[in-house]
């Protein structure tokens, strides 16, 4: 089969994909198979392709991704739990020529930070919000999150989420899509090559919106938490497709082209 040696293929002119230099060389602290790494890379690839590394300020609040600044090779602020949209609001208002994004998990964005999320969206802050929804608190050890599915087991819903006593999963993405301040609201995933490509397009669109001062773009990425869900990585992705996607269907929720 080999008509050509590996050495001949592995030449610089044949390189078609390598990790973006906007990710540092530090090994990611995430569990094997966690979608966070892919999501990080997508955001950094978009910044690289747009050539805006020197104009971008990222904000990562408490959660698994609180250490995002270790991996993203851009200026970053670590924020208090839930407060990233407020932090980003000021950063953007005071630096309208900079690109500003938050990178938040579901507990952060949809529980403790609900007010900051809704009001930043409602004011139409000209920022990008990247929202990783894996239906669980990963960093603190797999507790129930606002987005945990009905019946889903977690360390604080060990018999499954009982919606009568624990409330219903919060579809915050649909909720903020109702607000006039949001310009682009979409839900994507990163578990297959096709989904990664779609997510990257969505993230690119979100930053292009910011470039055009259009308002707030919100990209939800439904992701796995194999540790919290207690599954092997590939199995967790299958479980996500079967269980998370019916409740959190993928696709654009709001695209305002005006």
């Amino acid at each position, binding site marked *: 089969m080999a008509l050509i040696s590996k050495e001949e*293929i592995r030449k610089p002119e044949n390189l078609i994909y390598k990790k973006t230099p906007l990710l540092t060389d530090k090994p990611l602290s995430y569990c094997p*198979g966690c979608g966070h790494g892919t999501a990080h890379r997508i955001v950094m690839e978009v910044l690289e392709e747009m050539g805006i590394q020197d104009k971008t300020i990222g904000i990562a609040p408490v959660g698994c991704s609180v250490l995002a600044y270790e991996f993203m090779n851009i200026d970053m602020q670590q924020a208090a739990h839930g407060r990233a949209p407020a932090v980003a609001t000021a950063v953007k208002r005071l630096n309208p020529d900079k690109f500003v994004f938050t990178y938040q998990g579901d507990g952060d964005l949809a529980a403790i930070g609900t007010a900051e999320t809704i009001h930043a969206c409602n004011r139409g802050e000209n920022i990008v919000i990247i929202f990783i929804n894996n239906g669980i608190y990963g960093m603190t050890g797999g507790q129930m999150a606002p987005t945990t599915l009905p019946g889903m087991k977690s360390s604080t819903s060990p018999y499954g989420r009982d919606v009568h006593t624990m409330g219903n999963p919060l579809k915050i993405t649909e909720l903020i899509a109702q607000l006039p301040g949001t310009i682009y609201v979409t839900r994507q995933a990163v578990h*297959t090559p096709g989904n990664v490509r779609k997510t990257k397009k969505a993230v690119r669109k979100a930053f292009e919106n910011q470039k055009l001062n259009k308002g707030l773009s919100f990209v939800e990425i439904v992701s796995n938490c194999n540790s919290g869900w207690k599954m092997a990585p590939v199995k967790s992705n299958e479980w996500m497709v079967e269980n998370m996607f019916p409740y959190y269907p993928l696709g654009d929720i709001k695209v305002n082209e005006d």
Partner: protein
Amino acid sequence: MAKVVGDIVIDIEKCKGCSVCIPACPNDVIALSKNVNGKGYNYAETINEECIGCANCAIVCPDGVITVYRKKLD
């Protein structure tokens, strides 16, 4: 028709053996090694020479450990 050949280079010390790349490959090029890396993970490795350089494995790799090359053969 021009034939395309590809190859991947896996940074095995940074691979966590999550296997997400394995189902992403259209030609079943990747499998987990029986050996482990310094972190104790069974890392991904190529098991045949069917790679077409599609980069599917690299773009789903959460840890960004795969570099992809592709060459057209005339």
